[in-house]
């Protein structure tokens, strides 16, 4: 097990570097340059810019320089947000996205596991069909459609919640709509996964044994069935994290939140190379570490799995 963890941790570094190289290649392959704007720059200024960013050196040297900096965790300064280092920008925006993402995933787990378990326990009942149809709906309605409808109903008609903007980490009223929007899709997926997993587990022998022992239904479900039935949900956490990231891009844009997603889109449109690379490197490592944690959790929950 320990060997497996170490192996996987060692692999993360080259993987992240491959992703960063790929991104760097894409940004560089595109015709034009980040400093090309509407107005043509005077030659002297252009020459200065090229020197400042090392663009007059050979490409291989530029690549090595970039990689060297990234390995040391120094992503440089943003080209468009002047006077701000990429690390500062990350430190400012990541907590916002992380807060929304974590709250959304917790909410999705709560709703999804409850709905999926109930659906499995009452298989083929109206409750089952109802919650599964609802889950399918949540999976099919894009979050940029859910979001404005929520705003329309809860902000503009009912005046219950603010329609947008960030109000600090404790501005809970401002967090409700973004979190619910983001959670909807995942609640739907988790409900379907839980239902499928629980149905399989509920038919297994050890559940019959537990029932035969005379344990209460609550104990059977909560103590015995859920542990096995939630395995698909655990393995879904990795992809979900990547998806949450994409989700936050839309949610942050609609609700005007100062998070990582918003900054990333902006940096791509600005062609802000250091910022693009910084975000990609950070997120890749984050997702790979999360996947590793999921695999460890998987082995812990299912004693049959050995690495």
């Amino acid at each position: 097990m320990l060997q497996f963890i170490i192996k996987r941790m060692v692999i993360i570094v080259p993987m992240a570097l491959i992703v960063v190289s790929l991104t760097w290649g894409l940004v560089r392959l595109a015709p034009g340059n980040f400093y090309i704007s509407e107005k043509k720059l005077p030659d002297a200024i252009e020459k200065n810019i090229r020197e400042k960013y090392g663009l007059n050196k050979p490409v291989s040297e530029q690549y090595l320089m970039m990689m060297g900096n990234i390995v040391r965790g120094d992503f440089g300064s943003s080209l468009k947000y002047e006077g701000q280092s990429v690390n500062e920008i990350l430190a400012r925006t990541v907590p916002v996205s992380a807060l929304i993402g974590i709250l959304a995933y917790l909410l999705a787990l709560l709703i999804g596991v409850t709905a999926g378990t109930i659906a499995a326990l009452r298989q083929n009942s109206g409750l089952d069909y109802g919650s599964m149809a609802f889950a399918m709906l949540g999976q099919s309605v894009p979050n940029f459609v859910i979001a404005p409808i929520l705003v329309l109903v809860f902000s503009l008609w009912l005046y219950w919640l603010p329609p947008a903007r960030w109000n600090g980490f404790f501005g809970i009223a401002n967090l409700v709509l973004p979190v619910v929007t983001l959670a909807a899709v995942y609640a739907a997926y988790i409900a379907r996964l839980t239902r499928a997993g629980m149905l399989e587990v509920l038919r297994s022998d050890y559940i019959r044994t537990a029932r035969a022992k005379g344990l209460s239904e609550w104990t059977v479900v909560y103590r015995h069935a859920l542990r096995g039935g939630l395995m698909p949900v655990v393995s879904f956490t990795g992809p979900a994290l990547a998806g949450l990231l994409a989700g936050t891009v839309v949610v942050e844009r609609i609700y005007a939140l100062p998070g990582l997603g918003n900054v990333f889109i902006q940096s791509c449109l600005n062609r802000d190379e250091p910022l693009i690379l910084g975000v990609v490197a950070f997120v890749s490592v984050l997702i790979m570490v999360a996947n590793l944690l999921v695999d460890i959790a998987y082995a812990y929950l299912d004693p049959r799995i050995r690495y």
Partner: protein
Amino acid sequence: MMKEENAKGTSLWKDAWRRLLKNKLAVFGMIVMAIMIVAVIVGPTIIEQLTGYTYDYMPSDQDLIKSMPPSLTHPMGTDDTGRDILARVLIGGRISLMVGIISTFVSLIIGISYGAIAGYLGGSIDNLMMRIVDVLYAIPYILIVIVLLSVFGKSNTPAWIKSIVDTIGGGQGMSQIILLFIALGAVSWLTMARVVRGQVLSLKNQEFVMAAKATGVTTLGIIFKHIVPNTLGPVIVYATLTIPSVMLSEAFLSFLGIGVQAPFASWGSLAADGIKNIAIFPWQLIFPGVTMALTLFSLNFLGDGLRDAIDPQQRKF
């Protein structure tokens, strides 16, 4: 010999078809999709015949250049410049469905080739190829797609895409759509490769493969002529489920303004236009959004139904 195989094949598919028809939700999905496809193909022409509105026709009468609520002439209302939203939703649907289908096709070609080769060759090559897939799974694709579309989009289109666009027409908007096909297709083949490999592993030791080998068919011939056609069932199922997820990605990218761009429209870009006026003219968002949700809903049900019908063993109760 040949005839017998055909007869058996037909009955297998007939069986699946019968099971599919029993699934009410899948039938519902199939009917909605049939209507949707016919509507996006002939709908715009019919609207033009009836009302004179095309998807980008703006009325010259000053009184009509405003967003009007749904009415008999404009069942989905009009947008800020007086354009008919129904016509725009149908034309947008063409693009959205096209992106979904073509990108899925791109992912099919990559995924099937990769998975079939890995599964058939087996051994250390298979091991290596599948390890690469495992590794690729960990990459946050959406970031790379966003980078790809934003740096190559706008005026930075690569030359070879430009030359394709020059022959088929459509200008800058079309080259962005071609970029979308490639980007979305290139990132959604991984699961397909795994599905196909699994199938190939179970097929490659069967008699018909041995027979083909004995008659001297080349390795590539065996893979693509004898084995791949037999993996069709799961491939169709998975493709049906890939289309809605690709369409959702397209909508997401178009919504952010880096996917489909004017003069073209897709459901995502229409929703992005509509969201600005949600408080005053809600129909501008609601109709494209509901149409898209209905389509994805139907495709998901159809895909689930197909899975149950074609591969009953895989069925999760």
